[in-house]
Structures are given as C-alpha cells and as structure tokens.
C-alpha cells in the first residue's frame, strides 16, 4: 500500500475508534493492531504507554475522586476512555514508525520543505542537548548548585539557537543553489 493509502487507512481507523463505545470492541481492535504491528509491537506499545501514562493517570484519578464524591462512578467509563486513548495513540505511533509522515501528507512542496528542515533542526537539537548534558555531568562530580544549572541552561539555549540557525542556513543555501527557491 502507498504512503497515502496508509494515511487514509490510519485516519479511517481513528474515526472508527471514536465512534465505538464498547470496551470489548476497542480491546479487540487493540489486540488486532498489536498483532498486525509485527516485531515492533512491544517497542511501540512501551512508547505509547510512556506517552499517555501521566495524562491518563491524572484524568482517571481526577474522575474517580469527582465521580465518587458525586455518587456516579462508572468503572466502564474508565475502561472505555483508557482503552480508546491507548488504541488511538498506538495507531499513531505505528503509523509514524511505518510511514514517512511528511511524504504521506505531501500537501504542499513548500510545507514539505519547511517540515523536512524542521525535522533536521530537531535532530540537531537532540544531538546538542545530549552533548551539553554529558559535558555538564562530566564537569560536576557532585550535584550542581541551582545557579550552575541556570548558567548551564542559558549557555545551552544560546548554543542551541546559534548552531541550529547555522545548520538551517547552510541547508537553505544548499537548497537555493539547487533552485529550491526559484519561482
């Protein structure tokens, strides 16, 4: 199936998941999605759980407190909403892992260009943050003071902006030389 086909299938599955209000059906759909996701299924499920855990625990606990206080608690609701969120986020992770999202969207060459450059900047951000974190840890055998952390954060912020700006400018100039900005 083409990237666009996967996108349409993903969107149809998302809408279907929000039209179903039976926990058993959602659980079956989740099981089917897990079995179809192949060898990556447990890695994707772990990422999904990490992504939703904080929010779903917060909402679920909030619901328990408020609903018990009001006397209208429903365990079925908790099951339904958590299964639905788990299914939706898993489908998103699976789709993004399988398909080049930017290419699948492909709505405008200019937007694709900005998206690709932005993704490049994100990779640069991750690399720089990792470098700074390791360097900071190596310079601080004892736990650093708050002031040191603040200085480190400021230095890291400036380096992030300068380096990513330089990298993006290089990419843009390279693209210009290849006619990317020609009308």
């Amino acid at each position: 199936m083409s990237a666009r086909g996967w996108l349409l299938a993903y969107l149809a599955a998302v809408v279907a998941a929000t039209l179903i209000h039976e926990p058993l059906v959602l659980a079956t759909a989740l099981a089917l999605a897990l079995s179809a996701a192949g060898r990556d299924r447990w890695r994707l499920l772990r990422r999904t759980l990490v992504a939703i855990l904080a929010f779903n625990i917060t909402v679920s606990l909030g619901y328990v407190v408020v609903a018990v206080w009001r006397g209208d608690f429903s365990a079925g609701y908790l099951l339904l909403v958590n299964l639905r969120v788990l299914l939706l986020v898993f489908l998103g992770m699976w789709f993004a892992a399988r398909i080049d999202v930017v290419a699948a969207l492909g709505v405008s060459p200019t937007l694709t260009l900005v998206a690709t450059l932005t993704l490049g900047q994100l990779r640069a951000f991750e690399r720089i943050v990792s470098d700074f974190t390791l360097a900071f840890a190596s310079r601080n055998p004892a736990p650093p003071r708050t002031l040191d952390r603040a200085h480190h954060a400021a230095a890291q912020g400036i380096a992030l902006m300068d380096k990513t700006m330089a990298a993006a400018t290089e990419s843009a100039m390279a693209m210009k030389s290849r006619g990317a900005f020609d009308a």
Partner: protein
Amino acid sequence: MHIPDGFLSPQTYLPAYAVAAGAWTWAARGLRDRLDETTVPRLAMLTALAYGLGLVMVPVPGGTSGHMLGIALLALTFGVRLAFLAYSLVLLLQALLFGAGGITALPINALAMGLVGATAAAAAKGLLARINEMAAIAVAAWLSVVLPAAIVALVLGIQPAIAHQPDGTPLFFPFGIDITLPAVLIPHLIIGIGEAALTVVIWRYANSRGWCK
C-alpha cells in the same frame, strides 16, 4: 496545553477539522512568495524551538498539560499566517512522533494555540509596542498562552454535555466547564509569566543576531 487523543467527541473534532482546513488554506495562500533562503532557516529554527518547548509538559488536573508554546515568537517574527502553519506542523509532529496531543485533537489544538495564540500575540504587540516594546512582547506572550488555555478548557468542558450515555455517563472527557476552566486556566496564568519572560529573553537575543525583522 495539548488536549490528548481520545478525549474529544467526533461531534467536536470533525467540525473543528472543517474550520481548521479553511484556516490552513488561508494561511498557506501565497506561502511560496513569503519564504526565501533567509526566512526558511529562521522559521525552521523557531519551529524546532517551539517543538522542544512544547515537549516539556506537566499534566494539569483539568485533563490537559502545562507547557510553554513559543507561538508568540513565531507570530512576532513571521506574522500570524506563517506562525499558525508552523505551529500546526509542530503539533502534528508531536502527536505522531511522541503521542503528545493527538490526531483527533489536532484541529482544536492548532486553532487554539496556533491561530488564537498567534493572533493574540500579534494584536497585543501591535497595540502596545508604541508604549514599550519589551512590555508589549511580554503581554503578547502571556496572552498567547492564556487565551488558548481558556479555549482548550471550554472545549474540554463541553464534552460531557455533548457526548454521553443515556444514563449521563460521559463517553469522552468526563469533567464539565466548572472544573476544566479553573483547572486549566489557573496554572496557565503562571505558565504565561514564564512564557513572557522567556519570549523577551529570546526576542532580545534574536534581535541582537538580526533574526527578527
């Protein structure tokens, strides 16, 4: 302040997609003419910065998250239309790559944070810049957080009323406006102050490097 996936009813997100599609079309019109080899690197850098800021999020009891946006920086540097498009891209990538926000919540998140946030920031700066530019930028950034938070709270808060079982049990988000409005808005009044301070610092630095128009 992302609304996560699975908490909005189709009665909410499907019409919201129709509205957002119109807004995205408006924002993308003439995009090619507004981008060149000098704007694209700055746009990519600030979009990536907004992406990074948005990932440091704390769950808020009202069912959303508290985090900085970076939308004011985008709006003040590139205008509302480009800022809205860039922030929509940020939200899409966060939803698909990190499960933050979601594909069903994308239009509401984009309209609230991307369009209303950017418009509020640009309007506040336009109105107040003659008095004091830095104060105008601070107010712009604060508003760009607080107004979208109010919209997100209202949209979440109407879910129990528009999607529920015959016995009244909610099908999507469980809390009404009486809970979501204070729970989402109050933390964002404070987060807005942090956003204002950060925006002023980055704006001054970006100006010193000639990155802002």
